[in-house]
């Protein structure tokens, strides 16, 4: 559905996006992650056709964004991070204007606007958008992004100004939209937010895509290659005897010594199991703690750095 090929953007000789290549299949909720200045917004602006790439290209449904911007935009619904509407117009008037630009007729716009304003919780709000809070604008931004029933929805920091109810509504709407087979790209620096809705992620660092895949795949990959510390959880039926190993940094025993958390320089689960068996201790559980989202993200970020 979305293909980015060697996408590069330079501002005054500085590369904001550097040779970015990625493939986002149909029906995916793709999270574009990265720290500030990683090139997420620049990538999205090129994808939406608001800025021209210095090199490379973006394709949506096989159409080149730079060569066929109008047809590409017809298939895209976009919500920028700083959502701006016409302040002297109501939500409905704003949607009517944008609907006309999509080529929708007035009855279709009226029907769709009514549905969407209800969906984002803005039905019955008649005041001008100038009087909206940031959160209300963001809700309206989501409604605007869905106005033309697009095949691709691109959202830049979509929950930045939303209250908890708004965030929950947003997640529900995005999941429903993806179930309809639409492709959603969500750019954010809030890991938890991306992890809760996205089915796959791409991690950007200094304009480069340093990882792409599902969270599980990325975490597994990191855990296999990581040289950082390992946390091991032990559960036993009987109290554990003392255990020593050169790779152990620390062991925190539970009060009854039937459980412990081991921080080690390597995965020493085999040695632990052997030691417990030697001492006739019945082992109930021996697991390595998975990497958190943050650890996974930071690992990729540090690898790239």
């Amino acid at each position, binding site marked *: 559905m979305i293909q980015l090929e060697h996408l590069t953007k330079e501002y005054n000789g500085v590369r904001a996006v550097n040779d970015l290549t990625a493939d986002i299949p149909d029906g995916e909720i793709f999270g574009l992650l990265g720290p500030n200045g990683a090139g997420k917004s620049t990538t999205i*602006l090129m994808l939406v056709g*608001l800025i021209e790439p210095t090199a490379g290209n973006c394709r949506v449904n096989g159409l080149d964004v730079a060569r066929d911007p109008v047809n590409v935009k017809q298939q*895209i619904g976009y919500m*920028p991070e*700083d959502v*701006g*509407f016409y302040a*002297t117009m109501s939500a409905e008037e704003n949607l009517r*204007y944008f609907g006309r630009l*999509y080529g929708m007729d007035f009855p279709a716009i009226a029907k769709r606007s009514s549905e969407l304003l209800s969906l984002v919780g803005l039905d019955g709000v008649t005041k001008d958008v100038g009087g909206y809070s940031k959160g209300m604008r963001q809700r309206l931004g989501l409604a605007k992004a869905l106005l033309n029933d697009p095949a691709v929805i691109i959202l830049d920091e979509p929950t930045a100004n939303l209250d908890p109810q708004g965030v929950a509504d947003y997640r529900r709407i995005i999941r429903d939209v993806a179930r309809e087979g639409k492709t959603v790209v969500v750019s954010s620096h809030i890991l938890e937010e991306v992890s809760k809705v996205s089915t796959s992620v791409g991690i950007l660092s200094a304009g480069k895509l340093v990882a792409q895949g599902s969270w599980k795949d990325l975490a597994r990959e990191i855990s296999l290659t990581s040289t950082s510390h390992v946390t091991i959880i032990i559960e036993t039926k009987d109290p554990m005897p003392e255990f020593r190993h050169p790779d152990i940094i620390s062991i925190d025993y539970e009060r009854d010594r039937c459980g412990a958390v081991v921080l080690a320089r390597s995965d020493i689960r085999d040695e632990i199991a052997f030691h417990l068996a030697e001492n006739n201790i019945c082992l109930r559980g021996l697991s390595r703690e998975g990497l958190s989202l943050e650890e996974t993200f930071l690992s990729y970020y540090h690898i790239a750095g």
Partner: protein
Amino acid sequence: MMTGNRLITIARKEFFDHIRSRKFLLIFGILLIVAVVGLIGGVTEYNKEIKSYNEHQSMVNSPLSSYMPEKPSILSVFSSVATYLIFVGGILGIAMGFDLVSKEKESKSLKILLSHPVYRDEVINGKALGGIAALAGALAVVLVIAFATLLIYGIVPDSSELILIAVFGGVSFLLIFSYFAIALFMSTVMDESGSALIYTIIIFIVLSVLVPTLANDTVMEYIIGSQPELPQELIDQMQRSANSTEENTFSFSSKVNTGAWDAYNERVQAYWEKRQAMGDTFALFSPTMNYEAITMAITSGRSRPMQVISIGNGVATSFAVASVDDVAVGDIFGNIAPNLIALILFPAVFFGLAYVRFMRLDVR
């Protein structure tokens, strides 16, 4: 969706934004007031001139009548309207254009707008079209009120006068559109509306005050030098002629060297033609001066004001730089053609610059 439909959608929104905006309504209100005040003043003056003309008419067969004045033109009524329009119209054009793009940059609505299936030229053309429609509407109202005022005072223009009134409306529109185009250009260049407004006002002052100042006497003398001095030989001859009490003044020409006088006259003529050409060239760069030249030609039937020139040594005379005689209506267009072309080119150039800038704008 057809390109034309998107263009019309944008233009329609811009048009209604303009005519609903407080700044437009306020300046338009001021424009109407000054236009009506100017018209009433113009009509009063016109009626006086007509009365004077009619008195001369009644004396046409009298042996005391030595000359027959021209019948005053109805268009003279518009001369004071033109004076007000230069400033109020300029301000209206600036007010309508200075934030057309910069406001959308500030409010971030430009990002949303351009993410829709529209070409950028449709957006900038739609904005210009909406502005043009609002300006044209405002001027149409002014002209209708002007026409109604004429009728109320019992003044009925003939067909040629109606054409000139329409031309007056057209050039007034071009003047306002010139400043609208400058403001639109600055709006595409600047990220903030405040900066766009300040720079547009600076350009407005340069074009409506500084350029006319450059074209004035002092600066012209500085650039191309003073008028040729009257040769000492001629001054002596003139003084001798003035001192001789027994001779009457009609014999002046017989006392001076006519060859030297003619040569001096030619040098003065060449000097003033050069000065006028330079002044006219300066004027072409100022929409205000072009507008003044055109409206003067339309409202008074003259291509430029008569100049009275002092040639020093206490001798004064009037000197015709170019034709200052009343010009036939058909000739007016010939006289104002350079100014008219400049007044058309000016907004076209600035709109072209705004267009190019907008097409290359990085929306971040």
